[in-house]
């Protein structure tokens, strides 16, 4: 067997057999849901429905119900959009980029992180759609032949690039996620006894049977999808940043935006993964699979991307002064000391200071501390978008147009509502879907399981009798798992 270096911490704690992995993951799906699940689901549903109500009110009345004015034409809506897209960057990063880098620790977290990604992108996609005011003409953003003459969408516009980027990202992530889910649905299909769930999982598993040739294709498809999804992850938030960077508004017209937005997206995405998984591992008793080492790895990612974000903030400040453009300099000076100083400093504290605490090993291995920081980071990242968007436009070219933004209760309701809907989706996922990638975890059991690493796992009776004949033949590190 291919073994990992002994000094690496095991990824699966204790002694597990293949069957125990199946049991641990499928049990929460097959058992009755705990009461806590119903309580959380109820709360999330109420908040989500309130948001839906606000959206209906908005569509019926018009986007005048938001706190926008002539100067500040973009505020919470696009802030929330960018925030959710950013959160939606961790899942595909974990499953695609970490697959290419052969990081085995991703296997415990990729499934739920991808689910989170997809739900976050759902929430993100909602905002540009409702911002149209007339949701039903949303298809006008597609280059369809139409009866308005030769009227095509503007392919030079970053807003149209966004349409393509977000829809490609959503659909490719969905396919990537589902292809990994098919074998795991087959496992559940072959376990459940009740007729209705059996039928459901039977349909969901597409008749997967686990033939050698199918697994061969499965591994290649995962690898190629990871290969195409990796540049996709980086492109999506770059394109989101073009919405601002290609404009001529001081504070937005910044060439540093694409890499800085991507780092910020990964930063907030990992924070959201931490928030969700720290609760999920406890509630679903998955501590043997998602443990301190996984949390520590993710905290290191948060620390690195947080440092990139911090560097970008300071670079922006420096360049605004160094450029000698007084409008540019004013935009940044105003951010830090103007009427929105509190948002700026909240962003600085949450995004620049807090991840630096992760340098301390004790702190980055503390689950409670991680949980708190993960929430702080997401608050900070929301403020980052708010600061970039609102403070850059609230001081217009003419001082007579200077204005402030005050959110209406509909702004608030729609935003909070998407958080509720997000949790509705995530809780449904945790209830009915395998939250860990079963088939992938089984492939690392013998190389990274604790009992196999310290040789306390029982030797199979066949090898005890015949000696381990297959030793040294299967160091197939060229494989993608």
């Amino acid at each position, binding site marked *: 067997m291919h073994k990992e270096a002994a000094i690496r911490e095991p990824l699966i704690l204790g002694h597990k057999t293949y*069957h125990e992995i*199946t049991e641990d993951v499928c049990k929460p799906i097959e058992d009755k849901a705990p009461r806590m699940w119903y309580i959380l689901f109820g709360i999330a549903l109420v908040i989500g429905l309130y948001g839906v109500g606000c959206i209906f009110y908005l569509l019926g009345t018009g986007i005048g119900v938001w706190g926008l004015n002539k100067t500040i034409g973009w505020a919470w809506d696009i802030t929330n959009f960018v925030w959710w897209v950013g959160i939606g960057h961790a899942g595909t990063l974990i499953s695609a980029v970490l697959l290419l880098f052969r990081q085995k620790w991703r296997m415990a977290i990729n499934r739920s992180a991808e689910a989170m990604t997809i739900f976050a992108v759902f929430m993100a996609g909602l905002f540009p759609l409702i911002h149209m005011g007339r949701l039903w003409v949303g298809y006008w953003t597609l*280059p369809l032949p139409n009866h308005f003459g030769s009227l*095509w969408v503007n392919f030079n516009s970053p807003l149209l690039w966004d349409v*393509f*980027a977000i829809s490609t990202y959503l659909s490719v992530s969905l396919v990537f996620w589902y292809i990994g889910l098919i074998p795991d649905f087959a496992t559940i299909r072959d*376990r459940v006894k009740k007729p209705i769930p059996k039928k459901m999982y039977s349909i969901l598993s597409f008749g*997967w049977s686990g*033939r050698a040739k199918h697994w061969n294709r499965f591994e290649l498809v995962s690898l190629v999808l990871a290969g195409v999804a990796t540049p996709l992850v980086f492109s999506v938030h770059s394109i989101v940043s073009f919405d601002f960077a290609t404009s001529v508004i001081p504070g937005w017209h910044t060439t540093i935006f694409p890499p800085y937005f991507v780092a910020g997206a990964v930063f907030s995405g990992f924070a959201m993964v931490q928030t969700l998984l720290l609760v999920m591992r406890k509630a679903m008793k998955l501590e043997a699979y998602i443990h301190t080492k996984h949390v520590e790895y993710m905290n290191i990612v948060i620390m690195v991307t947080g440092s990139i974000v911090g560097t970008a903030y300071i670079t922006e400040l420096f360049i605004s002064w160094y450029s000698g453009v007084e409008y540019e300099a004013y935009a940044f000076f105003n951010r830090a000391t103007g009427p929105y100083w509190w948002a700026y400093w909240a962003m600085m504290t949450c995004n620049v200071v807090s991840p630096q605490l992760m340098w301390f090993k004790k702190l980055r291995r503390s689950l409670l501390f991680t949980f708190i920081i993960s929430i702080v980071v997401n608050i900070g990242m929301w403020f980052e978008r708010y600061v970039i968007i609102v403070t850059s436009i609230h001081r217009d070219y003419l001082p007579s147009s200077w204005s402030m933004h005050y959110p209406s209760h509909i702004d608030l309701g729609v935003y909070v509502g998407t958080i509720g809907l997000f949790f509705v989706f995530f809780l449904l996922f945790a209830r009915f879907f395998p939250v860990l990638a079963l088939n992938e975890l089984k492939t690392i059991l013998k190389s990274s399981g604790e009992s196999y690493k310290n040789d306390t796992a029982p030797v*199979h009776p066949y090898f005890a009798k015949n000696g381990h004949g297959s030793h040294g033949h299967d160091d197939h590190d060229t494989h993608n798992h």
Partner: protein
Amino acid sequence: MAEKVIYAMYDDDDVLKDGAKKLVAKGVKVADVFSPFPIHGIDPIIGVKHTRLGIMAFLYGLTGTALATLGMNYFMIHDWPMNIGGKPSMTYLDNVLAFIPITFEFTVLCAAHGMAITYLLLNKTLPGMPATNPDPRTTDDKFVMELRLSDNGQFSEGELMTMLNETGVIEIDQKDIH
């Protein structure tokens, strides 16, 4: 015509691999292996060729690139050229920089979905398809090797059974496939 198939079940991937190696060395043809996860290194032993889906993905990607290029060239340069911000759309090359993001996204879109659809069709894994694994435990922790008598004409059924029994098999099942 009915065909006799032997299903040999193992409870460990390494035992199965070891067994497959020994059987193949003796000239037995292993028709298929059912497992709950990919067994690394089994493919060359039982003669499963590496898939060419990667080439297909590349071709789908190229199709996407071509479609995006042709489409934007038609929409923006020929059908309705627009003067945006004083930058007129005279030739494709003048404007190509603005078209790169969508060309890239569309390439990825076509490559990913084309490959995923081909993969599902090739595997015949589609919604509503029946499962064909011989035992429900093969998606949990058991591994099954499938031998067909017609592939192994030089051995009698008894000989195959004896050889299988030496490989640490835990259960043997026989079925007639029509």
